[in-house]
C-alpha cells in the first residue's frame, strides 16, 4: 500500500490558482523528485503536505488514512493538525535552524518537548539525546554537536536541518531545494547525505534543480508547470526521455547549462 496518496489537490491564493488537480502516490522506501521551473507550485505543494498551507480542494492520505479532506473540516482541526504534521518532515531551502540552540539541541528540541508533554523519565530524555548524537554522526557531524548554527558552514547547517527533520521519524521526508541556498562547492556534501538516505530506503519527496542527482537518486519524478503535473513516471524516464513538450524544453535549458 502507498505511504502517501494525494488526490485532486488544489490551492488558490485569492484568485490565483497555484495548484490544480495534483494527484500522485508514493510507495514506502521510494524517493520522488519534483521538477519544474520557478513559480510552478513546487514549494506550495510541499507546504500543503506539511499543513503550512490549507489546500482549497482534494485529499491527502497517509498509510491509507485520510489525514486531510478539503470537504471535511473535521480533518482540519488545529489540535489534530499538529499530530498529523508529524507524518512529514520538512527540510527548508534556507535551513531555518534555531540560532540560540546548538546543533544537538536543534535536533533534540522537538522530541524533548513531546517527551516532556507525556511526562517522560530522565532515561527517555537521555535516550533522545543519544539518538540526536547518532543522527548527527550519520550526517558526518559528530564533532559539530556543540556548535551553534552561526559557527557552521551552509552545508553543515543544512545537514543539521536534515537530522532535525529526521528526529521525529517522519513517514515521509520532504526537501525543498535543499542545496539552492548553498555555494556550489557545498552542495555535494548535502546531496551525498540525501543519497545515503535513499540507499537506506527513506521515503522522500525532493524538490530539486539538480537533474543528474534526481535521475540517479529518485525512483519517480513529477514535472510541474503552472500548478499542474504535466508529466510523471520513473525518474530516469522523465528526465532522460520526456514525452511532454514543456518537460523537454525545461530539461533542454538545464542540459544547456541554463537555469530558470
Amino acid at each position, binding site marked *: 500500500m502507498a505511504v502517501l496518496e494525494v488526490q485532486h489537490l488544489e490551492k488558490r491564493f485569492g484568485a490565483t490558482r497555484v495548484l490544480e488537480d495534483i494527484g500522485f502516490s508514493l510507495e514506502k522506501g521510494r524517493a520522488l523528485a519534483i521538477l519544474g521551473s520557478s513559480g510552478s507550485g513546487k514549494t506550495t505543494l510541499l507546504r500543503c503536505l506539511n499543513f503550512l498551507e490549507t489546500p482549497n480542494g482534494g485529499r491527502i492520505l497517509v498509510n491509507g488514512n485520510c489525514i486531510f479532506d478539503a470537504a471535511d473540516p473535521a480533518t482540519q482541526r488545529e489540535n489534530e493538525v499538529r499530530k498529523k504534521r508529524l507524518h512529514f518532515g520538512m527540510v527548508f531551502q534556507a535551513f531555518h535552524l534555531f540560532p540560540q540552540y546548538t546543533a544537538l539541541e536543534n535536533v533534540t528540541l522537538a522530541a524533548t518537548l513531546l517527551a516532556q508533554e507525556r511526562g517522560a523519565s530522565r532515561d527517555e530524555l537521555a535516550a533522545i539525546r543519544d539518538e540526536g548524537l547518532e543522527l548527527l554522526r550519520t550526517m558526518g557531524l559528530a564533532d559539530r554537536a556543540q556548535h551553534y548554527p*552561526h559557527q557552521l558552514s551552509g552545508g553543515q547547517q543544512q545537514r543539521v536541518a536534515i537530522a532535525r527533520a529526521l528526529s521525529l521519524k517522519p513517514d515521509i521526508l520532504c526537501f525543498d531545494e535543499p542545496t539552492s541556498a548553498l555555494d556550489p562547492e557545498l552542495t555535494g556534501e548535502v546531496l551525498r547525505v540525501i543519497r545515503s538516505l535513499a540507499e537506506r530506503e527513506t521515503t522522500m519527496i525532493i524538490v530539486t534543480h539538480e537533474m543528474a542527482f534526481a535521475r540517479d537518486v529518485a525512483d519517480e519524478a513529477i514535472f510541474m508547470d503552472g500548478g499542474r503535473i504535466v508529466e510523471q513516471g520513473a525518474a530516469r524516464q522523465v528526465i532522460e526521455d520526456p514525452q511532454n513538450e514543456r518537460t523537454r524544453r525545461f530539461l533542454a535549458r538545464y542540459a544547456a547549462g541554463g537555469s530558470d
Partner: protein
Amino acid sequence: MFWTVTLSLLEGTAAAAELFFLTLIFALPLGLVVSFGSMSKWAPFARMKANIPAWLRTFRPVSLVVRTVVWVFRGTPLMLQLLIIYYGPGLLWNNNVWGSGTGGRMFAAVVAFILNYACYFSEIYRGGIESVPRGQYEAGLVLGMTRRQIFFRVTLLQMIKRIVPPMSNEIITLVKDTSLARIIAVTEIIKVGENFMRKGMIWPLFYTGVFYLVFVGVLTLLFGWIEKKLDYFK
C-alpha cells in the same frame, strides 16, 4: 552644607527610583500586551459573505484602536499627560481620584509614566517580534510544536536579543524623564536642586547631574552584561 544637600538629593533620588522601578515593573509586561493588540489580525468582516466594501474586509478594530492610543501617547508630551492625568479628574468631575498629598502625586505620576512607557515599549516589542523570520515559526510548526512552545522556546530569546539595544536606550531616557514629575510637584532630584537654587545656591543643581550619571552608569553596565550574555548566538 554638603551633607545636607546630599541627603536631600538622596531623598529626591529615592522618589525618582520609586517612579522608575514602578514604571518598569508594570510597563514592561503591559507593553507586551499592547504590542499584541497592535499586531492583532482580528478582522470580523473578513469572511463575511455579504457584498461589503474591500476596506471593511481588512478592517482590524483591535489593532486600529490600540495603534491610535499608542499614537496619542507617543505623539504628545509626557509633561502634558502628567498634567492631564493628575489634574484632569479633579477639574472635570470635581473628583481627585489620586488622593491628597505626596502619595497621591506619586500615584498619578506612576500611572502616567506606565501608560506612556508601555506605548513606547510596545513598539520596541513589535519591532522585535516582527524581526524574527517567519521561517523560525514554520520550522517549529513542522516539528509539531505548539504556538506557545514556539513563542517561549524559539522566538522569545531571539526577540529579546534584538530588543536589548533599543530597550536600553528607552530605559535610560526613562531615568531622565522622571524629572518631569516635578510638574505635578513630585519632589524628585531636580526639584530638590531647584529648591536650593531658590535659596541662592547654584552648585547643588550641577550636583544633581552626578546622581543621574551614577544611575545611568549602573544601567549601562547592566545592559552591557545582558548583551554579552546573548552574544553566543547570531
